[in-house]
């Protein structure tokens, strides 16, 4: 007595002895592994299984219903041992490879590729190689390259990158490919048509398969139908990706080249666009020339190499160059790391220049008996500023101040608009404090730098004080965050009038009403216990809201409304277990707020 298994081969049911089943399934598994890499594996396996079903069917009858080991042996002897498949698939794979090669280069003539032409070269044969590709005279390329070089140096970069990217035509085959089938509108059209034809064929195949699938037949066909569909999708997808990759490559090249040009022009100051002579400005920043030079090299390496690699990669993608150039990878990445280390070293070096702060304080006591002090400032005319927006932005926001770069010559750097702040005086007189400060490697250096800032005393005529907008220091002292601040001390009960000309001097001046600096101008402000209060408040929007939030309560108050919410177990709450919500209308007017929402929020 033997145990049998019921199996389904190609839609036919067989009863098969267990050991025979093991052998058969092992056999099929081995064959399948041989076809692993061939296309149409499922189809081949389907055909083989169908044939096996046919062979087994011959072996069973009403008298002998079970498939035996001998039957399986018979099947294997007819279909062939696994070894027979091995030699078959080996050659099948070779076939497949040659087929792919043919697909890559259809037509009798090879498709043209870009190489550097070693037979007609001035430097590296780049121009002649490209002109071979486009069928133009290399003279024009060489001329335009020279023009680009003269115009900004971009020509040299492009040439060097192309030299690296484009391989040299070494073998005769490569030289032939270099002058292969013309690349023109016709050949492009032809290749597009070939692609389209391929699509159509795929589409038709798929349609055919779909029809077959639609008729109720067995499952192999459905399987091969979906295969076809996937094939079709894959080929459409690949073409899209290819086209997209080319466009992407062009974009990458354009971006890379423009970034490289921008970098070079900004570093060497050879262009007249926007912000030029960055190095003049940088020389005020760096300790000495060698530090500056190193910084430039570091910048070029850290930023420039990725740009170059962008262009390099773009050209490789565009020209479809497969060969990897390990030299370039190694050289570029090690140069980049050298740049990084250099950059870090210089950063540390420069940062130490800013570690200590030093300041000097100059106090002027005013003798005026007037109740109001009038403050004015000279405005720096726009034309005095060097027209470099970038410079003005460099430190404008860095220090929470009005710091602005004004201009610079060989000896002096001028900067503008000291901060003016208003504070309460400890006695009955007005005081003006001028604070100069700077950073440096140590306290002493910082103090010396602060001392040598030249900023004239304000012009005082009775109750009018007029400030100058520009301070300066010697270029030789370098820029180390020098700045000037002015504190006006106002006695309680007396006031200051801020004239309009003071606008650029103010930065976030404290006052009782939290009015913006701009709104503080052209008004008198009285010093009170709480701070500055507006003496003439007409036209000021004082509807500022008072909001107070802490762990136990939320308190919102403006001119005429008040909302007060307290936490459940807050000690000050009236009932210990409920949160309290209190709303008061300070003007006895109707006042509504989304109360249900608020309650639900608190309960939640």
């Amino acid at each position: 007595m033997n145990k049998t298994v019921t199996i389904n081969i190609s839609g036919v049911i067989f009863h098969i002895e267990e050991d025979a089943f093991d052998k058969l399934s092992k056999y099929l598994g081995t064959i399948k592994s041989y076809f692993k890499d061939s296309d149409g594996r499922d189809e081949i396996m389907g055909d083989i299984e169908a044939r096996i079903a046919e062979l087994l069917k011959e072996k069973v009858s009403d008298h002998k219903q079970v498939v035996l080991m001998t039957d399986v042996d018979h099947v294997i002897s007819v279909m062939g041992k696994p070894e027979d498949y091995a030699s078959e698939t080996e050659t099948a794979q070779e076939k497949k490879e040659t087929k792919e090669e043919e697909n890559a280069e259809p037509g009798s003539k090879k498709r043209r590729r870009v190489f550097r032409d070693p037979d007609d070269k001035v430097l590296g044969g780049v121009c002649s190689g490209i002109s071979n590709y486009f069928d133009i005279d290399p003279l024009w390329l060489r001329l335009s390259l020279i023009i680009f070089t003269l115009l900004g140096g971009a020509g040299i970069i492009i040439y060097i990158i192309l030299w690296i990217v484009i391989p040299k035509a070494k073998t005769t085959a490569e030289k032939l490919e270099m002058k292969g089938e013309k690349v023109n509108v016709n050949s492009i059209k032809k290749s597009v048509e070939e692609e389209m034809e391929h699509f159509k064929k795929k589409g038709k195949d798929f349609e055919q398969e779909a029809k077959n699938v639609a008729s109720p037949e067995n499952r192999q066909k459905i399987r091969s139908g979906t295969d076809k569909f996937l094939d079709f999708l894959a080929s459409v997808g690949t073409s899209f990706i290819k086209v997209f990759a080319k466009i992407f490559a062009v974009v990458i090249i354009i971006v890379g080249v423009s970034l490289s040009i921008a970098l070079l022009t900004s570093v060497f100051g050879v262009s007249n666009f926007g912000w030029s002579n960055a190095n003049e400005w940088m020389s005020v920043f760096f300790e000495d020339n060698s530090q500056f030079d190193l910084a430039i090299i570091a910048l070029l390496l850290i930023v420039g190499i990725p740009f170059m690699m962008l262009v390099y990669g773009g050209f490789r993608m565009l020209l479809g160059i497969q060969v990897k150039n390990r030299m370039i990878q190694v050289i570029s990445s090690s140069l980049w790391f050298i740049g990084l280390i250099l950059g870090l070293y210089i950063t540390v070096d420069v940062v130490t220049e800013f570690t200590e702060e030093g300041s000097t304080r100059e106090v002027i006591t005013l003798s005026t008996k007037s109740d109001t002090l009038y403050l004015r400032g000279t405005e720096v005319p726009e034309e005095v500023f060097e027209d470099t927006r970038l410079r003005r932005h460099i430190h404008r926001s860095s220090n929470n101040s009005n710091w602005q770069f004004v201009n610079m010559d060989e000896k002096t750097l001028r900067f503008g608009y000291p901060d003016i702040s208003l504070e309460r005086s400890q006695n009955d007189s007005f005081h003006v404090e001028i604070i100069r400060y700077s950073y440096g490697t140590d306290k002493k250096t910082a103090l010396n730098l602060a001392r040598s800032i030249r900023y004239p005393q304000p012009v005082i005529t009775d109750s009018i004080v007029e400030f100058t907008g520009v301070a300066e220091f010697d270029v030789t002292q370098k820029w180390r965050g020098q700045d000037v601040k002015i504190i006006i001390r106002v006695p309680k009960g007396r006031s200051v009038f801020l004239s309009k000309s003071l606008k650029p001097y103010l930065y976030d001046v404290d006052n009782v009403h939290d009015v913006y600096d701009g709104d503080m101008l052209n008004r008198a402000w009285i010093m009170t216990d709480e701070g500055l209060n507006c003496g003439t408040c007409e036209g000021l929007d004082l509807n500022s809201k008072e909001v107070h939030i802490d762990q136990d309560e939320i308190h919102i108050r403006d001119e005429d409304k008040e909302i007060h919410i307290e936490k459940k177990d807050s000690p000050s709450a009236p009932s210990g277990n409920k949160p309290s919500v209190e709303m008061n209308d300070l003007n006895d007017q109707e006042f509504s707020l989304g109360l249900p929402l608020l309650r639900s929020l608190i309960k939640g």
Partner: protein
Amino acid sequence: MNIENTKAQMRKGVLEFCILSILSDGDAYPTEIIERMKVAKLVVVEGTLYPLLTRLKNLGLLSYRWEESTSGPPRKYYRLTELGIQFLKELEQTWDELVTSVNQATEKKKTNGAMSAGAASEPDN
């Protein structure tokens, strides 16, 4: 590259030619094809035929239709396509040329090896 591989490759090229020739006599399903090839002692085992048929079909040289069978699952009946017929014609021509030249080449070697020295010098002229 071993001798078995060379043999297999040689046989393979001929096999494709034979399959196309057999199908030019009329549609057939794999077992019929194999029967005729077994008679000609070209194929020993059946299994190796299926990948060949699939490839020829994928190349567009063959097409197939399904036919119900009394003894098992439905059968694939293969037939030559237009391209297949054309391809076969070319193969027939190449085969004839090949047979002639192979015969000539191998016979020359067998009969007069001495002549080869004289033949080799000829291209120099």
